[in-house]
């Protein structure tokens, strides 16, 4: 299975490299947006929280969510190209194929978040060392979550139009409710009540708690929730791929 996963992953890297427009646009936009919104986050930061960290974490969550459709597209494009049936007719199992699709995306999202946080450290003095290993682990957990949800959407939805609609609307709602767009303290109370229902909330909360030694419980909780969502979404994707008729476009 590992070899098959490696073969698919290598091919996925090729496909992503051939059409990098969307990802490059998200990377540039997020880097610019963080510079622009950083003062707002600083102003809205409540005592005990870091405005820079909120800006970096919020922007990272926002643009990774926008890349949901990039993950879903990895499966839906196969339908348009008629290659999905051929992949499934190979000896590789669905788990190996999905893992091969997921790994490059996962790596890409981790690097994307790392670059944003590096930018925050470089320009605004964010103390990355305070987070230690916790920040990279959270990047990984959040990337796994987004990748798995994106692949599940790609597996279950039947057209690129539907994927675009669901991913964009879902991302906007999650961004709003999670506090990634505007810190929760600046939003109505009912938003704060709904926020824990979105994975983005746990990512934002995880970033805040990652740099605070006293918040290790909150950090572990956030990582656990994100990992659980990733597992559920990944399982949903595998189940859909195993169901008969998936490849009958």
């Amino acid at each position, binding site marked *: 299975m590992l070899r*098959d996963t490696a*073969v698919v992953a290598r091919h996925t890297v*090729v496909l992503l490299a*051939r059409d990098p427009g969307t990802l490059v646009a998200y990377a540039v936009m997020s880097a610019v947006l963080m510079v622009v919104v950083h003062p707002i986050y600083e102003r809205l930061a409540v005592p005990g929280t870091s405005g820079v960290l909120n800006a970096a974490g919020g922007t990272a969550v926002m643009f990774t969510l926008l890349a949901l459709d990039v993950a879903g597209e990895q499966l839906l494009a196969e339908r348009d190209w008629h290659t999905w*049936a*051929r992949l*499934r007719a190979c*000896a590789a199992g669905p788990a190996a194929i999905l893992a091969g699709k997921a790994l490059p995306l996962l790596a890409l999202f981790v690097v994307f978040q790392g670059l944003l946080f590096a930018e925050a450290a470089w320009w605004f003095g964010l103390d990355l060392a305070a987070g230690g290993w916790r920040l990279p682990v959270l990047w990984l957990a959040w990337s796994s979550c987004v990748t798995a949800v994106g692949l599940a959407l790609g597996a279950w939805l039947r057209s690129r139009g539907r994927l675009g609609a669901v991913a964009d609307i879902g991302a906007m709602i999650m961004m709003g409710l999670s506090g990634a767009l505007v810190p929760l303290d600046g939003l109505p109370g009912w938003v704060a009540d709904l926020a824990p229902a979105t994975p983005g909330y746990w990512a934002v909360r995880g970033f805040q708690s990652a740099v605070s030694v006293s918040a290790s419980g909150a950090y572990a909780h956030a990582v656990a929730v994100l990992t659980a969502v990733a597992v559920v979404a990944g399982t949903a994707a595998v189940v859909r791929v195993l169901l*008969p008729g998936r490849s009958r476009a």
Partner: protein
Amino acid sequence: MLEATGLRKRFGAVTALDGFDLAVTAGEICGLIGHNGAGKTTFARIASGLDRPDAGRVLIGGADARTARGRVGWAPQETALYPTATVRENMRLFGGLAGLRRRRLRAEIDELADALGLREVLDRPAGRLSGGQQRRAQTATALLNRPPVLLLDEPTVGADPDTRLDLLAVVRARAAEGAAVCYTTHYLPELVELDATLAVAAAGRVIARGSRAALLAGLPGRAVLRFDGPPPAALTPAPGEHSDGEHSDGEHSDGEHSVVVTAERPAEAAARVLAGLGPDAARLRGVDIAEPTLDDLYRHLATREARSAA
């Protein structure tokens, strides 16, 4: 090597396979022919391990098709390549998933690129190739690991004559190496070039199976007698051809008329007709004898099937 027994498959109200039986031995090329909707593609999907039949089973070298995926090379009817990846990258993916590694994968890619005339386009994105080049590239991806069973679904659609010859040569070579080949096509002369046995599918099952000679035996052929001026009045069917033969005539622009004699042995029937013509035989311009073709066989079986269904 490939053995399908009693396959049944329904998609909602549509019966795609209805007792489909087919066995192809190692080294045999079996031409699977039939109308669109006859069940060929559904059979190929089940044999490649993609779909489960509602009933029946497909064995690949004795193992169930769903567990023998790596032993089947499948090139579907529609083009199924990654358009932004190069031909080489497409071949690397499918070869890699078929278990080929490094040196052997490179060697197989090179060999197939040469055999199918893909050398010059190996590093070009598949989406920028012509239709014929894409068909060749797709077939190449199915042949990479030299699978013991090949399911080739209309591999020459849109291919130019040279491409077609290349493809047929490679298919023949793989069969000579021992592969069981199931070759679907609407270009029946290809099956003659491949020296293929035949399986005729209709309404979800195989209605005729055997060698070309055996299936063509007993089918009527045609003799076309061309005359200067109107067809001879004395022209009447000779005894023996009425049972399964018929005459028809038509006028050509240059005043020439032709009479078509349809009979089991068209040459003998034509000789009998000419013997009875008397002086009119002098107006004969020429005789063309056409033995029964696969098209005739196909039409004959399809008509028979339609009648029995009615």
